[in-house]
């Protein structure tokens, strides 16, 4: 049991515990706060996986951006704060009955495969490699631009849909 194992268990518990609270809390605002906690746990896992850039992006986009958007939407639609609302629909038992075996099947499938052992350390310039691959015409420049156009279209669409008429 090394320090890394302890960190993995701590971040994994934060992630899964937060996620469980997200899907079970009746108050949507509380659920959103637990979702932020869960995202933080995922950022910790990225640090453990030696992907510091993605950990930072996780903090900026998920905790800084998406969570704030969701909290704004909760504030704009006050009805959700009503504690009398039932949080789950009539099919929640069926959903649990499907999801628990699905999780078991996934875990069984993963564990029945012999995975490669950990390779050596990550090259020191991994962020440089990532940045160059994203603008390399032989590499990922086209998907990168398509993602940019998708974001632009989505944001214009969001403004158009949500605009007061």
């Amino acid at each position, binding site marked *: 049991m090394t320090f*890394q194992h302890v960190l*993995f268990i701590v971040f994994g518990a934060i*992630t*899964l515990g937060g*996620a*469980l609270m*997200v*899907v079970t809390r009746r108050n949507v605002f509380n659920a*959103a706060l637990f*979702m932020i906690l869960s*995202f933080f746990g995922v950022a910790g*896992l990225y640090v*453990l*996986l*030696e*992907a510091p850039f*993605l950990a930072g*992006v996780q903090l900026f*986009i*998920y905790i800084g951006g*998406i969570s704030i*958007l*969701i909290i*704004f939407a*909760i504030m704009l*639609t006050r*009805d959700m704060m009503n504690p009398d*609302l039932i*949080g*789950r*629909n009539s099919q*929640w038992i069926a*959903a*649990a009955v*499907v999801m628990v075996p699905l*999780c078991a099947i*996934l*875990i069984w499938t*993963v564990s029945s495969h012999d*995975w*490669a052992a*950990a390779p*050596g*350390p990550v090259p020191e310039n*991994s962020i440089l*490699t*990532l940045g160059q*691959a*994203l603008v390399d015409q032989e590499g*990922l420049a086209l998907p990168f631009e398509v*993602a*940019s156009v998708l*974001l632009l*279209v*989505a*944001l214009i*669409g*969001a403004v158009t*849909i*949500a605009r007061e008429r």
Partner: protein
Amino acid sequence: MGPQIPLEWYLFLAAALFCIGAYGVLSRRNAIAILMGVELMLNAVNINLVAFWRFLEPGGAVGQAFALFVYAVAAAEVAVGLALIIATWRTRETVILEDVDLLKG
């Protein structure tokens, strides 16, 4: 120093996170809570992508780059989704998906 945690641990964790998120999508009534379930599922996918990058091809960039594309798609999805929820709230005064039945015959 390489990672001391086996790849399976990350895959197990991502599988559990994905199933929890999918359960949230299937069982919640609030539209925003359903969106939060989708975000959890996308995070599970991203954990898998980064873990495979770290364990199978740490010298390459594709794993991390695809995680970044997932971020872009997640941001687009949440922006459009929340705009739809706010538009629905304006016209129907509800965020409970079962009450949104405009297309019901």
